[in-house]
């Protein structure tokens, strides 16, 4: 009887230890920077967003970004108003954009070992209620218990129903904009 209770307590201790050492759930980031950059011969336009939230599931490789669209800030107030307006991103109807993907080469990334790894991400991007497949590359950096992700990719505005046929926006906004993503994660 004594032996049994001894065994039980050993099992209890070991399982408690394991519960603490196993990778604990999702990595969460609320420290993010998303920038978009548009270049035309007329002008360069950029906007910055620091309020997105992201998660990475280290066991499945699932990556999610939730982006509050009204948080994009422009140098010029008028541009920001146009960006939010119905003709551009209609942020009142579609307050958030979302990236939902999966790291396809998870086996090559060791989140417990310092280093820089290339991550291939496949999934979908939803902007203004329109969802399109994406396949992009990113960099995962592990340093101590800090994990950060960086990626730059292009988004073609017309894919998401954002088109300009005349006037200033048509000549001053690029058809394809460059999006830069940076996020720093902590275990949940």
């Amino acid at each position, binding site marked *: 009887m004594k032996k049994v209770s001894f065994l039980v307590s050993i099992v209890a201790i070991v399982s408690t230890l394991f519960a603490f050492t196993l990778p604990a759930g*999702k990595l*969460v980031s*609320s*420290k*993010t*920077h998303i920038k978009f950059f548009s270049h035309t011969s007329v002008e360069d336009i950029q906007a*910055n967003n*620091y*309020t997105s*939230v*992201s*998660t990475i599931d280290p066991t499945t490789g699932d990556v*999610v970004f*939730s982006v*509050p*669209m*009204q*948080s994009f800030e422009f140098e*010029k*107030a*008028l541009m*920001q*108003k146009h*960006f*939010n*307006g*119905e003709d551009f991103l*209609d*942020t*009142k109807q579609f*307050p*958030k954009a*979302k990236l*939902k993907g999966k790291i396809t080469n998870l086996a090559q990334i060791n989140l417990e070992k310092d280093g820089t790894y290339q991550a291939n991400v496949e999934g979908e991007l939803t902007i203004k209620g329109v969802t399109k497949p994406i396949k992009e590359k990113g960099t995962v950096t592990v340093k101590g218990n800090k994990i950060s992700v960086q990626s730059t990719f292009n988004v073609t505005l017309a894919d998401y129903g954002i088109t300009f046929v005349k006037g200033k926006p048509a000549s001053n906004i690029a058809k394809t904009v460059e999006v830069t993503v*940076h996020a*720093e994660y902590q275990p949940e």
Partner: protein
Amino acid sequence: MTPKKKKILKIGAILLIAGLLIGGGTVLYMFNMPHRNVQNASVDFSLSASQLVNEYLENPVKANEKYLSDDGDSKILEITGTVAKISDDFNGQKVVLLQESSDKAGVSCTYTQETNQSVSSIKIGEKVKIKGVIRSGASFDPDLEMYDNVVVEKSSLIQQFVNF
């Protein structure tokens, strides 16, 4: 040319120039229009962090209609709540999370480089009143598998409630 015709021409020319000046000035102003100064603007709604979060969780469509604006200059809020977390963002701005322990989500208030200073005096667990502009609401996100907080930016500290 009769003096009468001359007079009409003169008035016409003056009107044309005035029109051009006003029109040109308006275009220039519109193009270089400054951003709305959230700190100086008047408050649209004054409420608690709990109230705001629950309005969004109960009816997100109605809450967006009430708080968000088409042009992105959404409602200016004065929010009272308990400080649950203080952090920094990538732009060197302080972020104060107001959340009650009984609520599923909170209100994330991003300060500005100009208003950052006032955060140094507040502590976790304190009750404060913060003013800022709402950017997006709270919701459960099935992909993140967690609750998104209400996002408020251009924040400034209005009042600090002293605990006795």
